[in-house]
């Protein structure tokens, strides 16, 4: 298996520690929106490297092609024509795909042991051979990323090219990007690089420029440099403050163990009631009244 060369930090639906003695550097992909020209080379490279081919779709009124993520399109360029606060029209582009959250909602929701893993370098990966196709990852994801394949009923999304990274290569999208808008390296290096980019953007008049590395999901291993970081929604609805849904947290946090133990307790209560109090028997010799 390709993932054996990467260390596992967390496994879905697993209550014992994951194999984790090897410490690997936390990696990150930094997508500098200000450098993106929307050419979709990243999409083409993703298809090429991962051997995925989506069905031919239809035009939805933007340059987006395909219109949405799918089991066959793990990254999609999104285009939005927006009027900014100062009354200017801007054509904002964003490469959409898995953010590789430090606190992944998909992994927390997944009921199948090992169907979703988080590697110690930060990559969140779906292991389709363990996937049952229940779609709980979709329920748990705050970014609307995972997609079930209509063909094999398994969930798919960006792997951050874990198979390339395991052998010391950068992700295919980063390799293909002609403007250097997609960078890849250690998370520390990417944070440092982003700082310089943001200073530069601010000097050029983008006063609200900033880094998108949302704390609500523990930070992400795919980060954006946004010229309008105060309003990420402008970029085709990028969540301003993504959080794991409280419903999902309650379901998978408190409810799961509490209800599990309660069921066991109910059975034990029955057994011990029976062996202490004894059965409820009608006296067959009871006389007629």
């Amino acid at each position: 298996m390709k993932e054996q060369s990467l260390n596992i930090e967390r496994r879905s639906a697993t209550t014992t520690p994951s194999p984790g003695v090897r410490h690997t550097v936390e990696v990150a992909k930094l997508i500098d929106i200000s450098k993106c020209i929307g050419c979709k080379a990243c999409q083409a490279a993703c298809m090429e490297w991962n051997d995925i081919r989506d069905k031919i779709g239809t035009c939805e009124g933007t340059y987006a092609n395909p219109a949405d993520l799918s089991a066959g399109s793990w990254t999609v360029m999104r285009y939005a024509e927006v009027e900014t606060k100062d009354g200017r029209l801007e054509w904002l582009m964003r490469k959409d795909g898995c953010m590789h959250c430090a606190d992944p909602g998909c992994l927390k929701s997944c009921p199948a042991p090992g169907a979703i893993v988080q590697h110690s370098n930060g990559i969140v990966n779906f292991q389709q051979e363990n996937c049952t196709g229940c779609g709980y990852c979709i329920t748990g994801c705050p970014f609307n990323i995972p997609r079930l394949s209509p063909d094999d009923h398994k969930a798919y999304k960006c792997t951050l090219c874990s198979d390339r990274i395991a052998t010391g290569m950068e992700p295919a999208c980063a390799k293909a990007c002609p403007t250097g808008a997609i960078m890849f390296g250690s998370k520390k290096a990417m944070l440092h690089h982003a700082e310089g980019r943001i200073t530069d953007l601010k000097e050029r008049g983008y006063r609200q420029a900033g880094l998108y590395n949302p704390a609500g999901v523990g930070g992400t291993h795919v980060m954006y440099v946004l010229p309008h970081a105060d309003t990420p929604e402008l970029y085709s609805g990028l969540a301003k403050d993504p959080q794991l849904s409280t419903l999902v947290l309650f379901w998978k946090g408190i409810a799961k163990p509490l209800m599990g133990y309660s069921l066991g307790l109910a059975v034990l209560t029955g057994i011990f009631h029976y062996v202490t109090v004894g059965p409820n028997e009608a006296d067959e010799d009871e006389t007629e009244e």
Partner: protein
Amino acid sequence: MNSNSTLLQRHTPQVRANHWFVVIAFTLVALSGLAFFHPAFYFLSNLFGGGPWARILHPFAGVVLFLAFLLLVARQWRHNRITAADRQWQQQMMAIMMNRGHDLPEIGRYNIGQKYLFRTLLVMIPLLFLTGIVIWQPYFAPEFPIGVVRLAVMTHAIVAFIAMISIIVHIYAAYWTKGAIRGMIRGTVTAAWAKHHYPGWYKEMTKGRE
């Protein structure tokens, strides 16, 4: 005079068949559902041929359970009205559970615990059906907004838990009350049993015979 060993018909063959059909469906749904509820129960998915098969079969078994349960409800509806005697009986529930019940009110065909079970399932099973539809992949779930799916998935788990606890209590109560299971398998109970547990029903059944 009736002898204590005279047999009284407690459940008709139709009710028994319906009940055990519901039992089979509930068992399949509960075991496959538990597999997805907590990793400790995931091994149960092997009973169904692995995770994907458990996931595929669970909702279909759920629909079968829902329909069979509705039929059972229709058959048993009229026996589940709560009476004043039931309320009195409930006040002595602790004593009954400790096998120290005496001078109990003359309750009818079912006791209030059974009637509560009936009501609980009457709410829970349709709720499981509805929330189950909302989270059913790949057929229906994509049609609902994500917020609705999240609410449904949590509600489904909580409601299923309540239903399973209720059923555990139901199974134990039936096992604890010697002779009750016979009433649902063979359909008959002894007169002494009926007189002891359901004196009101006993009177009704033996009226005019003496």
